């Protein structure tokens, strides 16, 4: 009897080994599990169709089985994987409508590549355009909040110094990466703080870095009366230095924080959304309101606006311009760091995440009016919403193109931006 049991166990063991081996036997594949998740309810979804495209042509398709599993053998390469929405049963929909299509699934030699489509209630297959639009609007607001946070610093620094800081995107990365080391890194310092706590030292570090930049680099350059063009090129050099040093230390793989990685959707006013998005939006609105009050109501904020308006006049009326510029750098970089942490919570932490955001930041500040803090806030939200909502009509891969298109068109029709004053920019 014991022998039979042992034999069965051995056979099962071999089978268990063989199953993944089978997948590799025929070469490579793309696979996944269709699972409906609603709170504590998890159940497999059968009969969901998946399409695999290469170069715009259909190469293979598959259907999920009774256990929700599906596997499609393919040669190595990069594929576009789509889920057929019509094949979803009633009451089941994608949790993230932006991920109906995975445009770039890379399958390496001998790899059984897992991809995940998150299924849940709410946005069902027969979801109306309005519901989908509402869902995308919330995602757009979240993304806009991140862009707005990151944009204010660029706009403020421009307003007081006239410098368009190309290294600002990498300040965003710095914030996200610093928070990672306090939150998720097992190496130094190994603290494993909650991400909201880890954000505090990360923001402080980014703000301090902004201040150090001003003291050690930009102020001496201004003193030597360096031209605007040289400072632009220097900020590019700084951007490369920061980005690639971060790559050396952080390495190339994207990594998530330990908190808020996967969240179940909730339904608010009929719109299905991830709670962390709401938190990001709410928190950002509070911070933006605080920045607004700081600029409008405090002495320092007023001084900042005065320097932005006319540095010489402010200096002669007793404002310490250098101090104001320093504060601007510290505040602006700190906000960028906060934006980075939010971006990291929303997606993942990656060495070039800030650079990818930089062009959207440019779009936001130009849209709102370069040099106006409130314009950057408005521009950030408009860009975020426009980028996400655009996926209703254009493929997802054109998201950034849309934002850059907005930037170019804005410069042509109203270069001073939505909230900017008319001045000579030609």
């Amino acid at each position, binding site marked *: 009897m014991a022998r039979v049991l042992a034999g069965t166990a051995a056979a099962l063991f071999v089978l268990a080994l063989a199953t993944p081996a089978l997948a590799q036997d025929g070469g490579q594949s793309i696979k996944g599990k269709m699972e409906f998740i609603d709170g504590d309810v998890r159940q497999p979804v059968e009969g969901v169709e998946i399409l695999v495209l290469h170069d715009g042509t259909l190469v293979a398709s598959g259907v999920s089985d009774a256990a929700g599993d599906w596997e499609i053998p393919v040669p190595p390469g990069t594929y576009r994987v789509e889920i057929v929405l019509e094949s979803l049963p009633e009451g089941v929909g994608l949790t993230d409508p932006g991920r109906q299509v995975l445009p770039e699934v890379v399958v390496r030699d001998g790899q059984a590549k897992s991809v995940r489509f998150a299924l849940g209630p709410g946005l069902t297959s027969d979801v109306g355009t309005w519901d989908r639009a509402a869902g995308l609007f919330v995602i757009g607001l979240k993304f806009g909040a991140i862009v707005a946070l990151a944009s204010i610093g660029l706009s403020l620094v421009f307003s007081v110094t006239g410098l368009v800081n190309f290294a600002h995107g990498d300040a965003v990365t710095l914030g996200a990466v610093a928070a990672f080391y306090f939150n998720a890194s097992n190496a130094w310092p190994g603290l494993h703080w909650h991400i909201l706590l880890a954000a505090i030292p990360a923001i402080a570090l980014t703000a301090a870095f902004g201040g150090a930049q001003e003291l050690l680099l930009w102020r001496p350059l201004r003193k030597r009366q360096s031209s605007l063009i*040289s400072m632009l090129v220097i900020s590019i050099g700084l951007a*490369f*230095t920061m980005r690639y*040093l971060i*790559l050396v230390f952080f390495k190339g793989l994207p990594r998530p924080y330990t908190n808020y990685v996967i969240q179940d959707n909730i339904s608010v006013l009929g719109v299905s959304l991830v709670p962390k998005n709401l938190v990001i939006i709410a928190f950002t609105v509070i911070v933006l309101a605080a920045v607004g009050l700081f600029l409008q109501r405090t002495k320092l904020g007023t001084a900042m606006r005065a320097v932005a308006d006319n540095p010489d006049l402010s200096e002669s009326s007793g404002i310490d311009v250098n101090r104001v510029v320093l504060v601007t750098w510290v505040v602006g970089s700190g906000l960028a760091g906060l934006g980075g942490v939010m971006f990291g919570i929303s997606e993942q932490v990656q060495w070039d995440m800030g650079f990818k955001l930089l062009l959207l930041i440019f779009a936001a500040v130009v849209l709102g009016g370069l040099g106006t803090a409130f314009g950057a806030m408005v521009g950030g939200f408009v860009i975020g919403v426009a980028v996400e909502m655009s996926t209703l009509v254009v*493929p997802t891969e054109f998201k950034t193109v849309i934002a*850059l298109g907005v930037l170019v068109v804005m410069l042509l029709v109203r*270069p001073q931006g939505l909230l900017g004053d008319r001045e000579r*920019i030609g």
Partner: protein
Amino acid sequence: MDVVKVLIDATRAAVGIPAAAFALSSIGLNLQFGYTGLLNFGHVASMLVGAYGMAITVEMGGSLWLGIPIGVLCAVMLGLLVGAPTLRLRADYLAIVTIAAAEMLRLVVRSSLAAPLTKGIFGIQAFADEFFALNPIPNGYYGIGRLRFDARGVWMMLVGWAVVLLAIAFIHRLTASPWGRVIRAIREDEDAARSLGKNVFGYKLQSLMIGGAIGALAGMVLAIDQQNVTPDNYIPLLTFYAFTIVILGGPGTLWGPVIGSVVFWFLFELLDGIMTAAVVEGWFGSLLGASDIGPLRFALFGIGLMWLMAFRPQGIFGTREEMLIDGR
């Protein structure tokens, strides 16, 4: 550490194809930035359209020799398209628009919508057989001591550097002409040039288009050598290679881009060789691994660009102080 090997590798890079291609690219950028004062942060776009214009022509059944003028024409059109609406903007706005336009172009080229024409992220390969079929150099290796190139490399280098020389001759004629004096006047003082009745906008546009055409040739030289174009080769980093080279050699000088490119690639490879050797010898301990050399090299590149622009904006050999250009 094998010092000789490191030096030979660096020398090979300094006379090789990337150096020739980036000399050419920088000659184009130098016309825009050095002579005219245009802050074109999207120069890589002209390399992209040049290479793609050529590759797509061949892919659609045309000849490579038809593809080259088509690529140049595409770059000229791009200059017109980007320049016409944006050249009235101030320098910093121009920088933002051009870098945005170049990224937009790259994203569109790699999209699945454009894939029927551009082959998306996979790009187009093996389109330059006609060029290598003309290679008159017999098979074998040529060079001095351990610094040797095969027949294909020699042929590619000969043509590449010949194009560089032609471009230099062209720029020499161009900048010595009244046209050249006007664009330098625009760089020094746009309003003064305008008050003399010069159509500043028209001159800037012409400079952008001609510089773009030269950039397109550079893109083609690189693409022909690799027999490959993929959209993700044309990242903004390439533009800033060219900027560094122009500043290194001295903006607004005839031979600056050529000298700059040779020096740049020599230093770039030298750094790589020294750091790789240092990792092998274990000088960095566990701090840095072999995979960190690439990123570290780019970080040092950034520091170099900052240092140059801050302390030697006139280039390593330049003496003139006229490079204190201001966009405001």
